[in-house]
């Protein structure tokens, strides 16, 4: 079985020289957000790491996550990380189909029971809507529960798997739930994002590959190495924010000069992700660099937090009508109080006269 080979074996089989291997390790350490001084440790660990068996189950999703991660052209270093794992089931990517694909999955699950890594993208419909998302006649809820029992750990790929994402957005028509809502007895690593930054997912896989452990997680189950700091703190436009220089519209002078996008609704200050450092498309750019505020896609329920273009500090204070009604109620109360006071005064005067 492929899973018994070490990663070093796989790379050598690819004809990778030692230089190439060290280059791979340097880029991997960088991907894992490790300091360059860790490269030799990484190299030693990768050399001897066993290829973990990975089963990837796509549920109620748009395949955007898979697209994002496979979009990089081969042979990339990300691609090699993927070659270093033994991806035993991914119904979009695998050559086999139908029953043969199912069999491959069952076989991998049996052979690696207790040891395989389960990757999930998409949320899971529940209760009366359970049957709204099925593969080969099995509901995704049952598939998740089955696959989770034998998994060493679960990686929720994308915001849907991690937090419910768009399917769970109000009014949540399929009673969609996230993986961590449904599975509570396994270590779960959330790699949210809509889609997640590909390098971050490969970084998480690399960490598992190299150290065989779950990375340190934040309160939302996200690896600290990538989600430890918010976008605002790592944003290259931050100096403009500090100086109070803002783009007021998407095409004004400020926008052209690359000013801060806070006024246009940037959610960078409350969003934790690696976009600002890792960037997208092999480090080419990222949303804020392309001139659009951060949408906060790696945060739970980002879809339901009001307009993407509403400044973060603008609250939901109500509207003029409610305030008007409040004022009227206040006036009525004031009138009543005044009338009461006058009545008392009068009464007192009458009593005095009497």
């Amino acid at each position, binding site marked *: 079985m492929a899973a018994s080979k070490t990663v070093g074996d796989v790379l050598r089989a690819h004809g990778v*020289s030692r*230089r190439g291997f060290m280059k791979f390790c340097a880029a991997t350490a960088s991907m894992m957000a490790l300091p360059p001084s860790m490269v030799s440790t990484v190299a030693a660990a990768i050399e001897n790491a066993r290829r973990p068996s990975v089963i990837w189950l796509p549920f109620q999703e748009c395949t955007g996550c898979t697209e994002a991660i496979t979009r990089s052209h081969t042979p990339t270093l990300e691609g090699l990380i993927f070659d270093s794992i033994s991806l035993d089931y991914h119904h979009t990517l695998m050559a086999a189909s139908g029953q043969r694909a199912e069999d491959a999955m069952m076989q991998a699950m049996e052979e690696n029971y207790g040891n395989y890594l389960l990757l999930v993208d998409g949320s899971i419909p529940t209760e009366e809507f359970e049957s709204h998302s099925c593969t080969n006649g099995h509901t995704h809820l049952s598939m998740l529960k089955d696959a989770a029992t034998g998994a060493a750990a679960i990686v929720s790929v994308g915001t849907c798997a991690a937090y419910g994402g768009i399917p769970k957005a109000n009014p949540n028509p399929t009673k969609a739930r996230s993986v961590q809502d449904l599975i509570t007895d396994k270590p779960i690593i959330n790699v949210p994002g809509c889609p997640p930054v590909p390098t971050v997912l490969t970084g998480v896989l690399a960490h598992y590959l190299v150290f065989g452990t779950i990375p340190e997680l934040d309160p939302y189950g996200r690896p600290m190495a990538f989600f430890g700091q918010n976008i605002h703190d790592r944003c290259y436009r931050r100096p403009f924010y500090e100086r109070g220089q803002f783009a007021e519209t998407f095409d004004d002078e400020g926008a052209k000069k690359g000013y801060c996008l806070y006024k246009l609704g940037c959610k960078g200050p409350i969003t934790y992700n690696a976009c600002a450092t890792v960037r997208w498309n092999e480090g080419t750019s990222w949303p804020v660099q392309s001139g659009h505020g951060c949408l906060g896609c790696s945060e739970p329920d980002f879809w339901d937090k009001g307009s993407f273009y509403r400044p973060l500090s603008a609250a939901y204070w109500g509207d003029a009508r409610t305030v008007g009604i409040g004022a009227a109620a206040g006036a009525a109360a004031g009138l009543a109080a005044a009338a009461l006071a006058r009545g008392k005064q009068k009464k007192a005067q009458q009593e005095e006269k009497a």
Partner: protein
Amino acid sequence: MSGLSGIGVKVESGAAAPDEIYANTLPLLHEIRHALARLVESGEPTVIDIQSIPMGPGDMNRLMDALGEGEVRAEFEALGKTVIRESRYGGVWIIEHLNGSGGVAGRFIEITWVPSLLQAQREDVEAGLEALADALAAAGN
């Protein structure tokens, strides 16, 4: 914010990055200076992973311009091209790992006498020794 027609689109090409973004260039140059001093005094090398530092458009170019071109330049092919070159400051090396499709997979600044990747690697030398011996044996010598 509704209606695509409401969004004015203007295509501009080759717009120069505004000068105001200095963000990380200057602090990085200072860091490099400290690392160079360390190398001279104690021989201790330093590696900086510049790909994972937040930079604005133009920042990387500005840094590269500041470091300039030195005397040495080397390339090797392994999992895509890698370019190693000395900057105008001796001992400051810029290492760019490209992947198979030409994208940048990693970018480091090494402050050292010789970057370790330039040297032949023990494993490769051993493999080379074996291969040469085999070749000679095959040729009947």
